[in-house]
């Protein structure tokens, strides 16, 4: 039963609960008109203590497409936080007006404070470099819809594997399925942290290899998950400049890949995928953004108990 639950981290949901959400998302994709008024009379509040365009718009679009309404703020300067109000007080007050709250905050664990005082479900839309569960849901729905399931897949993860939270969450979520192989493609400086190797890979007996070049392995992959090297993670400009263009996926490399491989990216993309790849049918990252909206629609319906 997902009604009235909170979603703070992807592992809050069991494999069965995830399937429930994905089943509903696929139903919505098939028959959107049947769901266009399901949330009428419900109000979603977006509390964005840190600016975000993509995630906020995706949530707002999701609620509006379900016939619900949206209130909220998109940066802390326009909220009572600027006057010194605590997170707890802000959430408690907003929960009096709304039916569900989506919250992003730069501090790790901030949405958990929200769950302690809120009368309505809280969805974490990103808490610093910590968790971003609806991105993981987006990635999983994309994989399930386009690859037919999660088992027996060889998944290549490329770019910043050290700081990329989406990569860590996705690996953790996929490690619950059968016969998954990870191929980790990154420069030495941006390899996955040891705790992921220990807690996710070795603990679950997952097959993996670590390589330096996309060309070496692209022909083996069912999925290539590209990530951006994020400037804000580096202490010095020199390292960032040296590493930012380390991996650029272009048509030449795509020519080596399987016919049915898919290229995913959490977006925004900078240089890591050449624009020429966008026209390749295997480049599905914009479709992935669309799946993100559908999975958020399904999540909202489930947490409100309207299905």
């Amino acid at each position, binding site marked *: 039963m997902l009604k009235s639950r909170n979603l703070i981290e992807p592992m809050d949901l069991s494999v069965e609960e995830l399937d429930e959400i994905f089943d509903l998302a696929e139903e919505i994709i098939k028959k959107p008109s049947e769901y266009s008024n399901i949330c009428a009379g419900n109000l979603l509040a977006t509390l964005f203590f840190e600016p975000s365009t993509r995630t906020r718009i995706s949530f707002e679009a999701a609620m509006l497409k379900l016939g619900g309404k949206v209130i909220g703020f998109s940066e802390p300067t326009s909220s009572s936080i600027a006057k010194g109000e*605590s*997170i*707890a007080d802000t959430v408690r007050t907003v929960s009096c007006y709304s039916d569900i709250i989506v919250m992003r*905050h730069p501090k*790790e*664990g*901030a949405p958990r*404070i929200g769950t302690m005082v809120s009368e309505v479900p809280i969805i974490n839309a990103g808490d*610093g470099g*910590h968790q971003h569960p609806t991105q993981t849901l987006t990635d999983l729905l994309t994989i399930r819809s386009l690859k037919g399931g999660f088992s027996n897949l060889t998944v290549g993860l490329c770019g910043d594997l050290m700081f990329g939270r989406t990569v860590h969450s996705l690996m953790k979520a996929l490690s619950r399925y059968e016969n998954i192989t990870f191929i980790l493609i990154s420069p030495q400086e941006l390899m996955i942290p040891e705790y992921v190797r220990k807690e996710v890979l070795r603990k679950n007996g997952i097959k993996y290899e670590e390589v330096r070049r996309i060309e070496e392995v692209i022909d083996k992959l069912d999925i290539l998950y590209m990530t951006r090297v994020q400037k804000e993670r580096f202490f010095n400009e020199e390292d960032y400049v040296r590493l930012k263009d380390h991996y650029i996926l272009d048509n030449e490399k795509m020519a080596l890949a399987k016919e049915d491989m898919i290229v995913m990216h959490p977006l925004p993309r900078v240089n890591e995928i050449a624009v020429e790849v966008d026209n390749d049918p295997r480049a599905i990252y914009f479709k992935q953004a669309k799946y993100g909206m559908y999975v958020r629609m399904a999540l909202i319906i489930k947490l409100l108990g309207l299905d």
Partner: protein
Amino acid sequence: MLVINSIEKGIVIDHITAGLGAKILNYLDIDTSEHTVAFIMNAPSKKYGRKDMIKINDVTDIDLSDLGLIDPKATVNVIENHKVVKKIRLEIPERVVDVIKCKNPRCVTSIERNAPHVFVLIDREEREYKCEYCDDIVSMKGDWQNEIMRKEWLRIKSRK
């Protein structure tokens, strides 16, 4: 041989691993209290060779179960009329609230006033705890002293 009189009413924290007594005193914020307190270091012990011991006079109604976080081997005896009326064997707590302070500067507890600091046991062997908000991990076996928050009950009582 150093002799410390028995107490009529109070608490005796016994079998403290030698060397941890001072840390427990620090945790209890005892230096601000007006109670009579005896602290014995390196007393001979049949069981452990050496042990520390703390006796606090005139206090019985307090919960010291979180002390297991610092030293799970210690025991707490409640004394009334010179007799032990209750013996508490300390255990490693599963969850502690406002005992360990999260040191992660990115954690929400660093900015949110009044947020309880909650840590959950994740590895009994290593005595590792995880912050319930940011997942930061601390080991109580390691250099943890600065992460322990001081209990304020004695201070509060002595101000009455």
